[in-house]
Protein backbone atom coordinates (compact mmCIF):
# COMPACT_ATOMS: atom_id res chain seq x y z
CA UNK A 1 0.00 0.00 0.00
CA UNK A 2 1.13 3.55 -0.61
CA UNK A 3 -0.01 7.11 -0.47
CA UNK A 4 0.07 9.28 -3.56
CA UNK A 5 0.96 12.94 -3.76
CA UNK A 6 0.40 15.18 -6.74
CA UNK A 7 1.79 18.73 -6.70
CA UNK A 8 1.34 21.40 -9.38
CA UNK A 9 0.75 18.78 -12.07
CA UNK A 10 0.17 20.11 -15.60
CA UNK A 11 -0.34 18.38 -18.91
CA UNK A 12 -0.20 20.11 -22.28
CA UNK A 13 -0.80 18.65 -25.71
CA UNK A 14 0.89 21.33 -27.82
CA UNK A 15 -0.96 24.58 -27.14
CA UNK A 16 -3.86 22.78 -25.42
CA UNK A 17 -3.72 22.71 -21.62
CA UNK A 18 -5.44 19.53 -20.55
CA UNK A 19 -4.57 19.59 -16.85
CA UNK A 20 -3.92 22.80 -14.97
CA UNK A 21 -1.96 22.81 -11.76
CA UNK A 22 -3.44 19.78 -10.02
CA UNK A 23 -2.69 19.33 -6.30
CA UNK A 24 -3.91 16.19 -4.63
CA UNK A 25 -3.14 14.02 -1.61
CA UNK A 26 -4.34 10.44 -1.56
CA UNK A 27 -3.80 8.53 1.65
CA UNK A 28 -2.78 4.92 2.10
CA UNK A 29 -5.72 2.57 1.48
CA UNK A 30 -8.08 5.30 0.35
CA UNK A 31 -10.63 4.68 -2.42
CA UNK A 32 -10.61 7.89 -4.45
CA UNK A 33 -12.93 8.56 -7.36
CA UNK A 34 -12.17 11.11 -10.07
CA UNK A 35 -15.44 12.31 -11.45
CA UNK A 36 -16.35 14.96 -14.01
CA UNK A 37 -17.86 15.50 -17.44
CA UNK A 38 -16.28 14.12 -20.63
CA UNK A 39 -13.06 15.92 -21.52
CA UNK A 40 -12.44 17.26 -18.01
CA UNK A 41 -9.04 15.52 -17.83
CA UNK A 42 -9.84 12.78 -15.31
CA UNK A 43 -8.65 9.94 -17.57
CA UNK A 44 -5.54 11.90 -18.54
CA UNK A 45 -4.70 12.34 -14.86
CA UNK A 46 -5.13 8.60 -14.30
CA UNK A 47 -2.94 7.81 -17.33
CA UNK A 48 -0.24 10.11 -15.97
CA UNK A 49 -0.36 8.32 -12.62
CA UNK A 50 -0.06 5.06 -14.54
CA UNK A 51 2.89 6.37 -16.54
CA UNK A 52 1.18 6.09 -19.92
CA UNK A 53 1.26 9.86 -20.48
CA UNK A 54 4.23 12.06 -19.68
CA UNK A 55 4.05 14.81 -17.07
CA UNK A 56 4.50 18.28 -18.61
CA UNK A 57 5.31 19.91 -15.27
CA UNK A 58 4.75 19.29 -11.57
CA UNK A 59 5.52 16.31 -9.38
CA UNK A 60 3.91 12.93 -8.95
CA UNK A 61 4.97 10.81 -5.98
CA UNK A 62 3.94 7.28 -5.06
CA UNK A 63 5.04 6.43 -1.53
CA UNK A 64 8.14 8.53 -0.97
CA UNK A 65 9.40 8.35 -4.53
CA UNK A 66 8.89 10.94 -7.28
CA UNK A 67 7.83 8.80 -10.24
CA UNK A 68 7.59 11.37 -13.06
CA UNK A 69 10.27 9.53 -15.05
CA UNK A 70 9.77 6.02 -13.67
CA UNK A 71 8.39 3.51 -16.21
CA UNK A 72 4.85 2.33 -15.64
CA UNK A 73 5.82 -1.21 -14.68
CA UNK A 74 8.18 0.04 -11.95
CA UNK A 75 5.65 2.31 -10.23
CA UNK A 76 3.94 -0.42 -8.22
CA UNK A 77 0.62 0.28 -9.88
CA UNK A 78 -1.83 -1.85 -11.86
CA UNK A 79 -4.48 -0.47 -14.14
CA UNK A 80 -7.83 -1.85 -15.27
CA UNK A 81 -8.81 -0.37 -18.62
CA UNK A 82 -12.26 0.66 -19.81
CA UNK A 83 -12.18 -1.92 -22.62
CA UNK A 84 -10.54 -4.49 -20.28
CA UNK A 85 -7.62 -4.80 -22.79
CA UNK A 86 -7.36 -8.55 -22.33
CA UNK A 87 -4.85 -10.26 -24.60
CA UNK A 88 -7.20 -12.10 -26.98
CA UNK A 89 -4.84 -14.97 -27.87
CA UNK A 90 -4.02 -15.88 -24.27
CA UNK A 91 -6.09 -17.92 -21.84
CA UNK A 92 -7.44 -16.26 -18.70
CA UNK A 93 -4.59 -17.76 -16.65
CA UNK A 94 -1.96 -16.53 -19.14
CA UNK A 95 -3.57 -13.07 -19.21
CA UNK A 96 -3.45 -12.85 -15.45
CA UNK A 97 0.10 -14.15 -15.18
CA UNK A 98 1.61 -12.12 -18.04
CA UNK A 99 3.10 -9.36 -15.87
CA UNK A 100 4.56 -11.91 -13.46
CA UNK A 101 6.14 -13.87 -16.33
CA UNK A 102 7.72 -10.65 -17.58
CA UNK A 103 9.00 -9.95 -14.08
CA UNK A 104 10.71 -13.37 -14.09
CA UNK A 105 8.65 -14.94 -11.30
CA UNK A 106 8.87 -18.72 -11.22
CA UNK A 107 6.02 -20.80 -12.59
CA UNK A 108 4.79 -22.13 -9.23
CA UNK A 109 4.56 -18.63 -7.74
CA UNK A 110 2.71 -17.36 -10.83
CA UNK A 111 0.32 -20.29 -10.57
CA UNK A 112 -0.29 -19.67 -6.87
CA UNK A 113 -1.00 -15.97 -7.31
CA UNK A 114 -3.21 -16.46 -10.35
CA UNK A 115 -5.26 -19.08 -8.51
CA UNK A 116 -5.55 -16.92 -5.40
CA UNK A 117 -6.77 -13.91 -7.44
CA UNK A 118 -9.14 -16.12 -9.42
CA UNK A 119 -10.64 -17.43 -6.19
CA UNK A 120 -11.18 -13.92 -4.85
CA UNK A 121 -13.02 -12.99 -8.05
CA UNK A 122 -14.78 -16.37 -8.42
CA UNK A 123 -13.33 -17.01 -11.86
CA UNK A 124 -11.23 -20.07 -10.96
CA UNK A 125 -13.35 -22.24 -13.29
CA UNK A 126 -12.57 -19.96 -16.26
CA UNK A 127 -8.77 -20.07 -16.16
CA UNK A 128 -8.39 -22.11 -19.36
CA UNK A 129 -10.82 -20.07 -21.44
CA UNK A 130 -9.93 -17.40 -23.98
CA UNK A 131 -11.38 -13.87 -23.51
CA UNK A 132 -13.78 -14.31 -26.46
CA UNK A 133 -15.42 -17.20 -24.59
CA UNK A 134 -16.33 -14.97 -21.64
CA UNK A 135 -19.27 -12.67 -20.93
CA UNK A 136 -18.77 -8.95 -20.31
CA UNK A 137 -18.88 -9.37 -16.54
CA UNK A 138 -16.42 -12.26 -16.61
CA UNK A 139 -14.01 -10.27 -18.78
CA UNK A 140 -14.23 -7.44 -16.30
CA UNK A 141 -13.33 -9.82 -13.47
CA UNK A 142 -10.36 -11.17 -15.45
CA UNK A 143 -9.15 -7.60 -16.04
CA UNK A 144 -9.39 -6.95 -12.28
CA UNK A 145 -7.70 -10.29 -11.61
CA UNK A 146 -4.83 -9.33 -13.87
CA UNK A 147 -4.33 -6.27 -11.70
CA UNK A 148 -4.68 -8.16 -8.39
CA UNK A 149 -1.99 -10.79 -9.16
CA UNK A 150 0.59 -8.04 -9.43
CA UNK A 151 -0.10 -7.12 -5.79
CA UNK A 152 0.28 -3.41 -6.60
CA UNK A 153 0.53 -0.56 -4.13
CA UNK A 154 -2.07 1.44 -6.07
CA UNK A 155 -4.93 0.17 -8.23
CA UNK A 156 -6.11 2.37 -11.10
CA UNK A 157 -9.53 1.85 -12.68
CA UNK A 158 -10.49 3.73 -15.85
CA UNK A 159 -14.29 3.71 -16.16
CA UNK A 160 -14.30 -0.05 -15.60
CA UNK A 161 -18.08 -0.47 -15.58
CA UNK A 162 -19.03 1.67 -18.54
CA UNK A 163 -19.19 -1.27 -20.99
CA UNK A 164 -21.56 -3.31 -18.84
CA UNK A 165 -25.34 -3.28 -18.87
CA UNK A 166 -27.22 -1.61 -16.00
CA UNK A 167 -27.92 -4.78 -13.97
CA UNK A 168 -24.37 -6.07 -14.24
CA UNK A 169 -23.04 -2.64 -13.35
CA UNK A 170 -24.90 -2.78 -10.03
CA UNK A 171 -23.47 -6.26 -9.33
CA UNK A 172 -19.94 -5.19 -10.22
CA UNK A 173 -20.28 -2.06 -8.10
CA UNK A 174 -20.94 -4.29 -5.11
CA UNK A 175 -17.98 -6.40 -6.19
CA UNK A 176 -15.73 -3.33 -6.13
CA UNK A 177 -17.01 -2.41 -2.66
CA UNK A 178 -16.18 -5.96 -1.50
CA UNK A 179 -12.71 -5.82 -3.08
CA UNK A 180 -11.98 -2.47 -1.50
CA UNK A 181 -12.76 -3.93 1.92
CA UNK A 182 -10.85 -7.16 1.32
CA UNK A 183 -7.67 -5.77 -0.27
CA UNK A 184 -7.44 -2.47 1.59
CA UNK A 185 -5.12 -1.15 -1.12
CA UNK A 186 -5.11 2.44 -2.38
CA UNK A 187 -7.53 2.61 -5.29
CA UNK A 188 -8.13 5.39 -7.81
CA UNK A 189 -11.24 5.06 -9.89
CA UNK A 190 -12.32 7.23 -12.82
CA UNK A 191 -15.97 7.51 -13.77
CA UNK A 192 -18.49 9.96 -15.12
CA UNK A 193 -21.24 8.10 -13.29
CA UNK A 194 -21.91 9.89 -10.03
CA UNK A 195 -23.78 6.91 -8.55
CA UNK A 196 -20.55 4.90 -8.78
CA UNK A 197 -18.67 7.83 -7.30
CA UNK A 198 -21.10 8.34 -4.42
CA UNK A 199 -21.39 4.64 -3.53
CA UNK A 200 -17.74 3.58 -3.80
CA UNK A 201 -15.61 6.54 -2.81
CA UNK A 202 -14.00 7.44 0.46
CA UNK A 203 -13.10 10.66 -1.29
CA UNK A 204 -14.37 12.19 -4.51
CA UNK A 205 -12.31 14.52 -6.70
CA UNK A 206 -14.64 16.57 -8.89
CA UNK A 207 -12.89 17.80 -12.02
CA UNK A 208 -13.89 20.29 -14.66
CA UNK A 209 -11.94 21.71 -17.63
CA UNK A 210 -8.60 20.38 -16.39
CA UNK A 211 -8.97 21.67 -12.84
CA UNK A 212 -9.96 20.15 -9.52
CA UNK A 213 -13.19 21.85 -8.45
CA UNK A 214 -13.52 20.19 -5.06
CA UNK A 215 -12.21 17.24 -3.07
CA UNK A 216 -14.20 15.68 -0.27
CA UNK A 217 -16.27 12.81 1.08
CA UNK A 218 -19.32 12.03 -1.10
CA UNK A 219 -21.89 13.32 1.37
CA UNK A 220 -19.82 16.44 2.05
CA UNK A 221 -19.81 17.30 -1.66
CA UNK A 222 -23.54 16.71 -1.82
CA UNK A 223 -24.39 18.94 1.08
CA UNK A 224 -21.61 21.50 0.93
CA UNK A 225 -20.57 22.12 -2.67
CA UNK A 226 -17.98 24.87 -2.99
CA UNK A 227 -19.33 26.14 -6.27
CA UNK A 228 -22.20 25.91 -8.70
CA UNK A 229 -20.44 23.33 -10.90
CA UNK A 230 -20.06 20.83 -8.06
CA UNK A 231 -23.58 21.60 -6.84
CA UNK A 232 -25.03 20.82 -10.24
CA UNK A 233 -22.77 17.84 -10.97
CA UNK A 234 -23.34 15.94 -7.73
CA UNK A 235 -26.91 14.80 -7.26
CA UNK A 236 -29.40 13.22 -9.60
CA UNK A 237 -31.59 14.78 -10.89
CA UNK A 238 -29.30 17.80 -10.86
CA UNK A 239 -29.84 20.80 -8.60
CA UNK A 240 -32.34 23.41 -9.82
CA UNK A 241 -30.64 26.76 -10.45
CA UNK A 242 -32.70 29.96 -10.29
CA UNK A 243 -31.78 33.64 -10.66
CA UNK A 244 -31.53 35.15 -7.16
CA UNK A 245 -34.05 37.84 -8.17
CA UNK A 246 -36.84 35.25 -8.32
CA UNK A 247 -36.33 34.13 -4.74
CA UNK A 248 -37.45 36.36 -1.90
CA UNK A 249 -35.14 34.81 0.75
CA UNK A 250 -31.97 34.85 -1.41
CA UNK A 251 -28.98 36.10 0.62
CA UNK A 252 -27.33 39.41 -0.20
CA UNK A 253 -24.71 39.19 -2.97
CA UNK A 254 -26.24 36.06 -4.49
CA UNK A 255 -26.42 35.89 -8.27
CA UNK A 256 -28.10 32.49 -8.46
CA UNK A 257 -29.60 30.12 -5.94
CA UNK A 258 -29.81 26.35 -6.02
CA UNK A 259 -32.51 24.00 -4.75
CA UNK A 260 -32.30 20.23 -4.84
CA UNK A 261 -35.38 18.43 -6.25
CA UNK A 262 -35.97 16.54 -2.97
CA UNK A 263 -36.00 19.81 -1.00
CA UNK A 264 -38.84 21.32 -3.00
CA UNK A 265 -42.38 20.92 -1.74
CA UNK A 266 -45.46 21.30 -3.91
CA UNK A 267 -48.35 23.24 -2.44
CA UNK A 268 -46.27 25.37 -0.06
CA UNK A 269 -45.97 29.11 -0.44
CA UNK A 270 -43.20 30.06 -2.87
CA UNK A 271 -43.06 30.21 -6.65
CA UNK A 272 -46.15 29.80 -8.81
CA UNK A 273 -46.00 27.51 -11.82
CA UNK A 274 -47.65 24.87 -13.96
CA UNK A 275 -46.85 21.15 -14.10
CA UNK A 276 -45.34 20.51 -17.53
CA UNK A 277 -44.94 16.76 -17.26
CA UNK A 278 -44.21 14.04 -14.72
CA UNK A 279 -41.92 11.00 -14.76
CA UNK A 280 -43.13 8.11 -12.60
CA UNK A 281 -40.34 5.68 -11.80
CA UNK A 282 -42.17 3.61 -9.21
CA UNK A 283 -39.92 4.59 -6.31
CA UNK A 284 -40.09 8.31 -7.15
CA UNK A 285 -42.14 10.71 -9.21
CA UNK A 286 -40.37 13.68 -10.80
CA UNK A 287 -42.58 16.65 -11.60
CA UNK A 288 -41.31 19.24 -14.08
CA UNK A 289 -42.82 22.60 -13.14
CA UNK A 290 -42.69 25.53 -15.54
CA UNK A 291 -42.05 28.86 -13.78
CA UNK A 292 -42.32 32.26 -15.46
CA UNK A 293 -38.86 33.79 -15.90
CA UNK A 294 -37.04 30.42 -15.75
CA UNK A 295 -35.45 28.84 -18.85
CA UNK A 296 -35.56 25.29 -17.51
CA UNK A 297 -38.49 23.81 -15.58
CA UNK A 298 -37.97 23.13 -11.87
CA UNK A 299 -37.62 19.44 -11.04
CA UNK A 300 -39.51 18.37 -7.91
CA UNK A 301 -39.09 14.93 -6.37
CA UNK A 302 -42.24 13.32 -4.95
CA UNK A 303 -43.17 9.88 -3.64
CA UNK A 304 -43.58 7.10 -6.18
CA UNK A 305 -47.34 6.84 -5.65
CA UNK A 306 -48.05 10.53 -6.12
CA UNK A 307 -49.48 11.30 -9.56
CA UNK A 308 -49.84 14.83 -10.91
CA UNK A 309 -51.84 15.92 -13.93
CA UNK A 310 -50.01 17.89 -16.61
CA UNK A 311 -51.15 21.51 -16.79
CA UNK A 312 -51.99 21.66 -13.09
CA UNK A 313 -51.33 25.07 -11.45
CA UNK A 314 -49.09 24.60 -8.41
CA UNK A 315 -46.97 26.51 -5.94
CA UNK A 316 -43.44 25.34 -5.10
CA UNK A 317 -41.93 26.04 -1.71
CA UNK A 318 -38.83 24.96 0.27
CA UNK A 319 -37.49 24.77 3.80
CA UNK A 320 -35.38 27.47 5.44
CA UNK A 321 -32.07 25.57 5.19
CA UNK A 322 -32.64 24.22 1.66
CA UNK A 323 -31.22 27.16 -0.24
CA UNK A 324 -27.73 27.18 -1.81
CA UNK A 325 -26.49 30.56 -3.01
CA UNK A 326 -23.78 31.37 -5.57
CA UNK A 327 -22.12 34.64 -6.59
CA UNK A 328 -21.67 35.84 -10.16
CA UNK A 329 -18.50 33.68 -10.53
CA UNK A 330 -20.40 30.60 -9.34
CA UNK A 331 -18.71 30.42 -5.91
CA UNK A 332 -20.87 29.19 -3.05
CA UNK A 333 -21.95 32.03 -0.76
CA UNK A 334 -23.90 30.25 1.82
CA UNK A 335 -23.22 26.61 2.32
CA UNK A 336 -26.09 24.59 3.70
CA UNK A 337 -25.30 22.78 6.97
CA UNK A 338 -23.85 19.31 6.62
CA UNK A 339 -26.77 16.98 7.14
CA UNK A 340 -24.57 13.96 7.61
CA UNK A 341 -22.83 15.68 10.49
CA UNK A 342 -26.01 16.92 12.12
Amino acid at each position, binding site marked *: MANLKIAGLCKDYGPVEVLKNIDLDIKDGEFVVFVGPSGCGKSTLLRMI*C*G*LDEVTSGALAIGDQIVNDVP*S*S*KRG*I*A*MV*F*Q*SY*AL*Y*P*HMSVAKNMG*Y*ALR*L*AGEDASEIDRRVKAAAEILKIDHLLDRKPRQLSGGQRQRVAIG*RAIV*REPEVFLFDEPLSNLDAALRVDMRMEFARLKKRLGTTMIYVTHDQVEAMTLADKIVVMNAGRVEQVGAPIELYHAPMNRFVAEFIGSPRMNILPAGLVADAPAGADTVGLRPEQLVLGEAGLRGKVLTTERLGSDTFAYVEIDGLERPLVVRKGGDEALASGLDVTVGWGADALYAFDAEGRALQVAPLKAAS
Partner: protein
Amino acid sequence: MLDLSTWQAKTVFTALAVLIGFFLFFPVYWLVISSVKPDHELYLLSPTIWPNEFTLKHFKTALFEGGLPLHLTNSLIVSLSSAAINATLAVYAGYSFAKYRYFGRKPVMLFMLSAQMFPFGLLLITIYPMFTDWGLLDSRFGLMVSYIVFALPVATYMLYSYFSQVPNELIEAARADGASDLRIFHTIVLPISVPPIVTVFLYSFMWSWNDLLYSLTLIVSDDKRTVGPGLLLNYLNESNADWGGAMAASLMAAAPVVIGFMALQRFFIQGVTAGAVK
Protein backbone atom coordinates in the same frame (compact mmCIF):
# COMPACT_ATOMS: atom_id res chain seq x y z
CA MET B 1 -28.03 -7.74 -48.07
CA LEU B 2 -29.39 -8.43 -51.54
CA ASP B 3 -33.15 -8.63 -51.70
CA LEU B 4 -34.01 -11.58 -53.93
CA SER B 5 -37.65 -11.85 -52.98
CA THR B 6 -39.13 -11.46 -56.49
CA TRP B 7 -38.75 -13.99 -59.31
CA GLN B 8 -37.45 -11.25 -61.64
CA ALA B 9 -34.66 -10.40 -59.22
CA LYS B 10 -33.82 -14.07 -58.78
CA THR B 11 -33.71 -14.63 -62.56
CA VAL B 12 -31.47 -11.63 -63.21
CA PHE B 13 -29.19 -12.55 -60.33
CA THR B 14 -28.90 -16.20 -61.44
CA ALA B 15 -28.25 -15.19 -65.07
CA LEU B 16 -25.50 -12.80 -63.97
CA ALA B 17 -23.95 -15.43 -61.72
CA VAL B 18 -23.94 -17.98 -64.57
CA LEU B 19 -22.41 -15.46 -66.99
CA ILE B 20 -19.67 -14.42 -64.56
CA GLY B 21 -19.08 -18.07 -63.67
CA PHE B 22 -18.71 -18.94 -67.35
CA PHE B 23 -16.09 -16.23 -67.95
CA LEU B 24 -14.21 -17.25 -64.81
CA PHE B 25 -14.28 -21.01 -65.12
CA PHE B 26 -14.43 -21.78 -68.86
CA PRO B 27 -10.72 -20.89 -69.42
CA VAL B 28 -9.81 -23.15 -66.49
CA TYR B 29 -11.98 -25.94 -67.93
CA TRP B 30 -10.36 -25.43 -71.36
CA LEU B 31 -6.90 -25.56 -69.76
CA VAL B 32 -7.70 -28.86 -68.04
CA ILE B 33 -9.26 -30.64 -71.01
CA SER B 34 -6.63 -29.36 -73.45
CA SER B 35 -3.91 -30.78 -71.23
CA VAL B 36 -5.37 -34.29 -71.56
CA LYS B 37 -6.29 -34.18 -75.27
CA PRO B 38 -3.96 -35.90 -77.76
CA ASP B 39 -2.21 -33.57 -80.24
CA HIS B 40 -4.43 -34.39 -83.22
CA GLU B 41 -7.55 -33.45 -81.25
CA LEU B 42 -6.08 -30.10 -80.17
CA TYR B 43 -5.91 -28.74 -83.70
CA LEU B 44 -9.35 -29.74 -85.08
CA LEU B 45 -11.28 -27.07 -86.96
CA SER B 46 -14.31 -27.83 -84.76
CA PRO B 47 -12.81 -28.22 -81.28
CA THR B 48 -14.29 -30.88 -79.01
CA ILE B 49 -15.85 -29.63 -75.77
CA TRP B 50 -15.25 -33.01 -74.13
CA PRO B 51 -12.16 -34.97 -75.29
CA ASN B 52 -12.74 -38.06 -77.46
CA GLU B 53 -9.51 -39.53 -76.14
CA PHE B 54 -7.55 -38.89 -72.95
CA THR B 55 -3.76 -38.87 -72.63
CA LEU B 56 -1.23 -37.99 -69.92
CA LYS B 57 1.53 -37.63 -72.51
CA HIS B 58 1.80 -33.85 -72.12
CA PHE B 59 2.27 -34.17 -68.36
CA LYS B 60 4.99 -36.80 -68.79
CA THR B 61 6.79 -34.68 -71.39
CA ALA B 62 6.55 -31.53 -69.24
CA LEU B 63 7.82 -33.32 -66.15
CA PHE B 64 10.57 -35.45 -67.61
CA GLU B 65 11.71 -33.83 -70.84
CA GLY B 66 11.30 -30.06 -70.40
CA GLY B 67 12.78 -27.65 -67.86
CA LEU B 68 9.53 -27.38 -65.87
CA PRO B 69 10.77 -28.94 -62.59
CA LEU B 70 13.81 -26.63 -62.60
CA HIS B 71 11.69 -23.57 -63.43
CA LEU B 72 9.16 -24.49 -60.75
CA THR B 73 11.95 -24.85 -58.22
CA ASN B 74 13.38 -21.46 -59.20
CA SER B 75 9.93 -19.87 -58.90
CA LEU B 76 9.36 -21.45 -55.51
CA ILE B 77 12.74 -20.23 -54.21
CA VAL B 78 12.26 -16.69 -55.51
CA SER B 79 8.57 -16.38 -54.60
CA LEU B 80 8.80 -17.91 -51.12
CA SER B 81 11.90 -15.87 -50.23
CA SER B 82 10.54 -12.58 -51.56
CA ALA B 83 7.15 -13.19 -49.87
CA ALA B 84 8.82 -14.01 -46.55
CA ILE B 85 11.19 -11.02 -46.66
CA ASN B 86 8.42 -8.75 -47.88
CA ALA B 87 6.00 -9.82 -45.12
CA THR B 88 8.72 -9.42 -42.48
CA LEU B 89 9.70 -5.92 -43.63
CA ALA B 90 6.07 -4.85 -44.09
CA VAL B 91 5.16 -6.04 -40.58
CA TYR B 92 7.77 -3.81 -38.91
CA ALA B 93 7.27 -0.84 -41.26
CA GLY B 94 3.46 -1.00 -41.01
CA TYR B 95 3.57 -1.22 -37.21
CA SER B 96 5.99 1.67 -36.97
CA PHE B 97 3.81 3.88 -39.19
CA ALA B 98 0.65 2.87 -37.32
CA LYS B 99 1.74 3.09 -33.71
CA TYR B 100 4.64 5.53 -33.41
CA ARG B 101 4.69 9.27 -33.96
CA TYR B 102 8.01 10.60 -35.25
CA PHE B 103 9.36 13.29 -37.51
CA GLY B 104 8.94 12.46 -41.20
CA ARG B 105 6.54 9.56 -40.63
CA LYS B 106 3.93 10.69 -43.15
CA PRO B 107 6.33 11.87 -45.88
CA VAL B 108 8.25 8.57 -45.69
CA MET B 109 4.99 6.65 -45.97
CA LEU B 110 3.84 8.72 -48.95
CA PHE B 111 7.25 8.31 -50.57
CA MET B 112 6.99 4.53 -50.20
CA LEU B 113 3.50 4.44 -51.64
CA SER B 114 4.51 6.70 -54.53
CA ALA B 115 6.54 3.79 -55.96
CA GLN B 116 3.16 2.35 -56.94
CA MET B 117 2.36 5.34 -59.13
CA PHE B 118 4.86 4.40 -61.84
CA PRO B 119 4.02 1.76 -64.46
CA PHE B 120 6.02 -1.41 -63.83
CA GLY B 121 7.39 -1.39 -67.37
CA LEU B 122 8.75 2.11 -66.91
CA LEU B 123 10.55 1.18 -63.70
CA LEU B 124 12.13 -1.77 -65.47
CA ILE B 125 13.99 0.68 -67.70
CA THR B 126 15.66 2.21 -64.62
CA ILE B 127 16.09 -1.05 -62.73
CA TYR B 128 17.86 -2.80 -65.61
CA PRO B 129 20.98 -0.56 -65.74
CA MET B 130 21.07 -0.41 -61.91
CA PHE B 131 21.06 -4.19 -61.67
CA THR B 132 23.71 -4.38 -64.40
CA ASP B 133 25.99 -2.03 -62.40
CA TRP B 134 25.39 -3.89 -59.13
CA GLY B 135 25.89 -7.32 -60.66
CA LEU B 136 22.32 -8.36 -59.86
CA LEU B 137 21.36 -9.10 -63.45
CA ASP B 138 20.67 -12.75 -64.21
CA SER B 139 20.53 -13.69 -60.51
CA ARG B 140 17.65 -15.08 -58.50
CA PHE B 141 18.58 -12.69 -55.67
CA GLY B 142 18.25 -9.70 -58.01
CA LEU B 143 14.84 -10.88 -59.17
CA MET B 144 13.76 -11.33 -55.57
CA VAL B 145 14.87 -7.77 -54.75
CA SER B 146 12.85 -6.39 -57.67
CA TYR B 147 9.72 -8.21 -56.42
CA ILE B 148 10.20 -6.87 -52.90
CA VAL B 149 10.55 -3.33 -54.27
CA PHE B 150 7.14 -3.55 -55.88
CA ALA B 151 5.18 -5.56 -53.35
CA LEU B 152 6.52 -3.86 -50.21
CA PRO B 153 4.62 -0.53 -50.43
CA VAL B 154 1.19 -2.13 -50.79
CA ALA B 155 2.04 -4.81 -48.22
CA THR B 156 3.18 -2.11 -45.78
CA TYR B 157 0.03 -0.10 -46.35
CA MET B 158 -2.19 -3.17 -45.84
CA LEU B 159 -0.51 -3.92 -42.53
CA TYR B 160 -0.47 -0.24 -41.54
CA SER B 161 -4.27 -0.19 -41.97
CA TYR B 162 -4.61 -3.32 -39.84
CA PHE B 163 -2.23 -2.21 -37.07
CA SER B 164 -3.97 1.18 -36.87
CA GLN B 165 -7.05 -0.72 -35.70
CA VAL B 166 -5.25 -2.67 -32.98
CA PRO B 167 -6.51 -0.97 -29.78
CA ASN B 168 -3.90 1.20 -28.10
CA GLU B 169 -5.22 0.03 -24.73
CA LEU B 170 -3.93 -3.47 -25.50
CA ILE B 171 -0.44 -2.08 -26.05
CA GLU B 172 -0.69 0.19 -23.01
CA ALA B 173 -1.86 -2.71 -20.83
CA ALA B 174 1.19 -4.72 -21.88
CA ARG B 175 3.43 -1.69 -21.24
CA ALA B 176 1.95 -1.31 -17.76
CA ASP B 177 2.57 -5.04 -17.27
CA GLY B 178 6.26 -4.35 -17.87
CA ALA B 179 6.77 -5.38 -21.51
CA SER B 180 9.23 -3.52 -23.74
CA ASP B 181 8.08 -2.15 -27.10
CA LEU B 182 9.63 -5.04 -29.03
CA ARG B 183 8.22 -7.57 -26.60
CA ILE B 184 4.75 -6.05 -26.88
CA PHE B 185 5.02 -6.35 -30.64
CA HIS B 186 6.24 -9.94 -30.60
CA THR B 187 4.10 -11.38 -27.81
CA ILE B 188 0.88 -9.36 -28.08
CA VAL B 189 0.51 -7.74 -31.50
CA LEU B 190 2.03 -10.39 -33.80
CA PRO B 191 0.04 -13.36 -32.47
CA ILE B 192 -3.24 -11.54 -33.10
CA SER B 193 -2.12 -10.39 -36.56
CA VAL B 194 -1.68 -13.76 -38.27
CA PRO B 195 -4.56 -13.31 -40.79
CA PRO B 196 -3.31 -9.99 -42.25
CA ILE B 197 0.28 -11.23 -42.30
CA VAL B 198 -0.79 -14.37 -44.19
CA THR B 199 -2.72 -12.11 -46.58
CA VAL B 200 0.37 -10.02 -47.23
CA PHE B 201 2.49 -13.15 -47.65
CA LEU B 202 0.06 -14.61 -50.21
CA TYR B 203 -0.19 -11.27 -52.03
CA SER B 204 3.60 -11.05 -52.36
CA PHE B 205 3.88 -14.72 -53.31
CA MET B 206 1.31 -14.40 -56.08
CA TRP B 207 2.93 -11.20 -57.31
CA SER B 208 6.24 -13.05 -57.78
CA TRP B 209 4.76 -16.32 -59.00
CA ASN B 210 2.62 -14.68 -61.69
CA ASP B 211 5.30 -12.30 -62.97
CA LEU B 212 6.45 -12.59 -66.56
CA LEU B 213 7.92 -9.22 -67.55
CA TYR B 214 10.62 -8.83 -64.90
CA SER B 215 11.71 -12.43 -64.92
CA LEU B 216 11.86 -12.50 -68.71
CA THR B 217 14.00 -9.34 -68.75
CA LEU B 218 16.24 -9.72 -65.70
CA ILE B 219 17.00 -13.46 -66.07
CA VAL B 220 18.78 -14.67 -69.19
CA SER B 221 20.15 -18.10 -68.20
CA ASP B 222 17.72 -20.98 -68.60
CA ASP B 223 18.83 -22.63 -65.34
CA LYS B 224 17.74 -19.52 -63.35
CA ARG B 225 14.52 -18.94 -65.23
CA THR B 226 11.21 -18.93 -63.33
CA VAL B 227 8.07 -20.73 -64.42
CA GLY B 228 6.33 -17.88 -66.30
CA PRO B 229 9.04 -17.16 -68.86
CA GLY B 230 9.92 -20.88 -68.84
CA LEU B 231 6.45 -21.79 -70.11
CA LEU B 232 6.50 -19.06 -72.72
CA LEU B 233 9.95 -19.82 -74.11
CA ASN B 234 9.65 -23.61 -73.99
CA TYR B 235 6.20 -24.10 -75.42
CA LEU B 236 5.08 -20.97 -77.25
CA ASN B 237 8.13 -19.55 -78.98
CA GLU B 238 8.46 -18.04 -82.45
CA SER B 239 8.95 -21.35 -84.29
CA ASN B 240 6.82 -23.69 -82.24
CA ALA B 241 3.50 -23.78 -80.35
CA ASP B 242 3.01 -26.90 -78.25
CA TRP B 243 -0.45 -26.16 -76.83
CA GLY B 244 -0.91 -29.51 -75.13
CA GLY B 245 2.46 -29.20 -73.37
CA ALA B 246 1.79 -25.57 -72.49
CA MET B 247 -1.59 -26.46 -70.94
CA ALA B 248 -0.23 -29.40 -68.92
CA ALA B 249 2.75 -27.35 -67.70
CA SER B 250 0.51 -24.37 -66.87
CA LEU B 251 -1.77 -26.61 -64.85
CA MET B 252 1.18 -27.87 -62.83
CA ALA B 253 2.55 -24.33 -62.47
CA ALA B 254 -0.79 -23.10 -61.12
CA ALA B 255 -1.02 -25.93 -58.59
CA PRO B 256 1.21 -24.46 -55.83
CA VAL B 257 -0.74 -21.18 -55.82
CA VAL B 258 -4.10 -22.96 -55.79
CA ILE B 259 -3.01 -25.36 -53.03
CA GLY B 260 -1.46 -22.53 -51.00
CA PHE B 261 -4.49 -20.36 -51.40
CA MET B 262 -6.88 -23.15 -50.40
CA ALA B 263 -4.80 -24.03 -47.36
CA LEU B 264 -4.57 -20.42 -46.19
CA GLN B 265 -7.96 -19.26 -47.48
CA ARG B 266 -9.40 -18.90 -44.00
CA PHE B 267 -6.67 -16.41 -43.04
CA PHE B 268 -6.80 -14.64 -46.39
CA ILE B 269 -10.52 -13.88 -46.19
CA GLN B 270 -10.21 -12.82 -42.53
CA GLY B 271 -7.26 -10.60 -43.41
CA VAL B 272 -9.00 -8.89 -46.31
CA THR B 273 -12.16 -8.24 -44.32
CA ALA B 274 -10.50 -7.49 -40.95
CA GLY B 275 -11.80 -4.25 -39.51
CA ALA B 276 -14.55 -3.95 -42.10
CA VAL B 277 -17.14 -4.36 -39.39
CA LYS B 278 -16.87 -3.94 -35.65
